[in-house]
C-alpha cells in the first residue's frame, strides 16, 4: 500500500484535488455521520412544524391489525435465534483476519495460504457441527 498512485491517477489528483491527508479523510467521515443525524433531525422538525397534531387515545395505541394488544411485546422469545447471532459473531471475527490476509497474501505465499486454510477449516468444522446438531434450523 506504500506505492503512490499511478501516473495517470496522480495527474487526476492535481485536477480535482482529492483529500490528501489522513486526518482530513476521517474528518470527512465524522462530518458525514454528523450531517446524517442533523439531516434526519431537520427533516423531522420541518415535518413537525407543518403536520397536524390531533392525538387521540386510539392513535396512541399499538397497532396490531385492529386487535386489542395484549400486554407488552417484550416477552419471552425462543432462543434458537441466538444460535445464528453466535455463528455470525464467529464468522465476523474470521473476517477481521481475512481482510489483512487478502491484502498481503501474494507476499505470504503458500505459507500464508496454509495458515488461513487451517483457520478456515477449523471454523467450518464448527459450522458443520452446528449443522449436525440441527442448530441451523429456523422453526
Amino acid at each position: 500500500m506504500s506505492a503512490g498512485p499511478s501516473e495517470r491517477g496522480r495527474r487526476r489528483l492535481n485536477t480535482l484535488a482529492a483529500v490528501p491527508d489522513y486526518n482530513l479523510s476521517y474528518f470527512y467521515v465524522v462530518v458525514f455521520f454528523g450531517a446524517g443525524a442533523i439531516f434526519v433531525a431537520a427533516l423531522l422538525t420541518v415535518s413537525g412544524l407543518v403536520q397536524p397534531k390531533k392525538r387521540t387515545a386510539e392513535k396512541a395505541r399499538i397497532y396490531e391489525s385492529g386487535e386489542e394488544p395484549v400486554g407488552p411485546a417484550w416477552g419471552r422469545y425462543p432462543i434458537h435465534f441466538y444460535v445464528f447471532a453466535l455463528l455470525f459473531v464467529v464468522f465476523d471475527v474470521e473476517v477481521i483476519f481475512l481482510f489483512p490476509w487478502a491484502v498481503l497474501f501474494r507476499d505470504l505465499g503458500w505459507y500464508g495460504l496454509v495458515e488461513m486454510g487451517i483457520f478456515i477449516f477449523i471454523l467450518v468444522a464448527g459450522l458443520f457441527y452446528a449443522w449436525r446438531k440441527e442448530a441451523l434450523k429456523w422453526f
Partner: protein
Amino acid sequence: MTTLVPLGAFIALSAALFFIGMAGVLVRRNAIVILMCVELMLNATNLAFVAFSRRLGLLDERGSVFVVFVFVVAAAEVAVGLAIVLAAYRNRPTVDVDEVTEMKG
C-alpha cells in the same frame, strides 16, 4: 503541523474507562450489564495497547496485533457468557447474579 495529544492523556483515559467498567462489574447485579462492563474494560485495555504501540515506537505494530486477539477473546467471551445467562434464565427467569445460586456446592 498539528499539535499532538500526549501519550499520557490516552493512558489516563484508558485507565478511567477501565475503572468505570470495574466499578460496574462490582456494583451492578444484572448479569447482562456485568457482561457489558467487562466489554468496556477490554476496550479500555485496547486503547492502552494501541496508544503504546503507536506512540512508544518500541513495538511497531505488535500492540495492534494484540488488540486483534483481544477482539477474538471478547467475541468468544460474550458468546459463551450470554449462552450461560440464557441457559440459567431458562431454569429460573432471572438475570440477577445474586439470585442465581444453583452452582453453589
